[in-house]
């Protein structure tokens, strides 16, 4: 691991100032991704700003509008089991519990999970010379390599990596808003604008600036979100990243879908909001035929590679299965 200077931030201002004055500084919270990447030599910050003691771990109802604010430093395990989340946004609780392991969830934070980096083998091991994400211009080892866990939507010629987070998929479906604070003040980033597609800049995962600290994630009030579910398909029964996952929220009135929120994981560089599927669902009868048509619409533009084309059909069936589960919920 490269040597680094280490400071503990007493408040958010101190944290952002430290990050703002050193382009190679990184915030350290749970560290379950950053420390791993530092061990691998993928991340080499010259300064770590420990933000663990900042008072940003609250999970509380927001005063106006009835949504819920999740602090940037709230631990994944605490968010997953908080009554407000379990009752009002079960898809988020399920997504969090589907991820990692209890030990990792006890350390991982909301902010850290948002910034979790891809598990692409060519990115994760610097022994592989081709990775446009690690080293712009070096090529993409995955496109003509082993690409089983890679993207089928939104990819570019430069990068076919996927976002590995389960939490992010649920937050995408819930239209969360990321609250951040930097040296230039505070701002709100709508979830759809937080993570980026690879395009020609795969080395940039998010639209967060280097000096910005994630202080909270706000969940808007969605009364029908009580009817939601997270389905994760993976090689093992537990403790594995998603091949494909679905966060589904449905409002069903008299057998017809009046509102739908769907997001996919394991298929793209960012959590994939399935807008085409949603459009194909609204107003329709909540049955398997409708669900399949919506899935077909969303995956029509999907493109697979040598080892991951199975994800296209798998994603469609996962959408149908997730929607079927939600439709029969009380």
């Amino acid at each position: 691991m490269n040597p680094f200077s280490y400071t503990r931030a007493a408040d958010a201002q101190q944290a952002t100032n430290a990050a703002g004055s050193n382009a190679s500084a990184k915030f350290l919270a749970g560290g379950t991704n950053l420390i791993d990447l530092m061990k691998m030599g993928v991340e080499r910050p010259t300064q770590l700003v420990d933000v663990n003691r900042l008072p940003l771990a609250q999970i509380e109802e927001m005063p106006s509008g009835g949504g819920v604010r999740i602090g940037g430093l709230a631990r994944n395990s605490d968010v997953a089991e908080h009554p407000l989340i379990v009752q009002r946004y079960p898809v988020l609780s399920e997504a969090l519990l589907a991820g990692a392991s209890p030990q990792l969830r006890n350390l991982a934070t909301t902010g850290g999970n948002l910034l979790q980096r891809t598990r692409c083998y060519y990115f994760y091991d610097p022994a592989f010379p081709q990775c446009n994400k690690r080293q712009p211009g070096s090529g993409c080892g995955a496109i003509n390599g082993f690409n089983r866990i890679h993207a089928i939507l939104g990819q570019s010629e430069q990068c076919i990596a996927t976002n590995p987070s389960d939490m992010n998929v649920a937050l995408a479906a819930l239209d969360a808003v990321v609250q951040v604070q930097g040296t230039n003040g505070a701002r709100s980033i709508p979830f759809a604008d937080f993570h980026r597609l690879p395009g020609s800049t795969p080395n940039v995962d998010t639209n967060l600036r280097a000096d910005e600290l994630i202080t909270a994630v706000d969940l808007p009030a969605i009364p029908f979100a009580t009817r939601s579910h997270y389905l994760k398909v993976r090689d093992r029964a537990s403790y594995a990243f998603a091949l494909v996952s679905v966060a589904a929220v449905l409002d069903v009135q008299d057998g017809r879908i009046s509102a739908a929120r769907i997001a996919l994981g394991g298929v793209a560089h960012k959590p994939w909001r399935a807008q085409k599927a949603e459009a194909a669902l609204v107003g329709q009868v909540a049955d398997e035929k409708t669900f399949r048509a919506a899935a077909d619409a969303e995956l029509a533009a999907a493109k697979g590679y040598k080892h991951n084309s199975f994800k296209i059909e798998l994603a469609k069936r996962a959408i149908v299965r997730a929607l079927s589960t939600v439709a029969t919920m009380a």
Partner: protein
Amino acid sequence: MLIFGNPETRRKFLKQVAGTSAALALGPRIGLFAQTRATASSAASSTATATTLPLKLKINGRDVALNVDTRTTLLDLLRETLQLTGSKKGCDHGQCGACTVLVNGRRINSCLSLAVTHDGEEVTTIEGLANGEQLHPVQTAFVEHDGFQCGYCTPGQICSAVACIKEGHVKNDDEIREWMSGNLCRCGAYPNIVDAIKEAAAKGA
């Protein structure tokens, strides 16, 4: 030979037999190598130098005050500096759970956590579960149900199980399996591990 009965003296004996170089290799790496690393890397990157900071922890009830290289993981601190070798380095990447310890009562992977981030906190390792000669109920259950073969994952399994029971995630076999899924066992002792946890939970561990 009597000395082999005691793990501490056994370790010391092996060090002496292997010679001085081995003793250096087995001893704490921090003081000895930090200087070398700092020199080498300051040539490569002028802004980054190794940092050593004071750290206070309560480990298994005992107050400990140290100066550590900030790159030291909690696992390496426990094993290399404090000679608490019960916690194991199975993968060093948070993927196997053999390094599971309790920090402020919560189970974490000590291999992925920098020691300095836990300043002022309480750490419980496998060495701290027993009460003198009295085994912790979870330890007793693991022995009675043969919950291990090689024993390498076992300290992590037991620490994880202690927390799992405290969390209340032991309602049935499926829940135990899911909530213990962060601890891998290459020997496949899983069925017996589940039985051990069930019994310990039932007995109010």
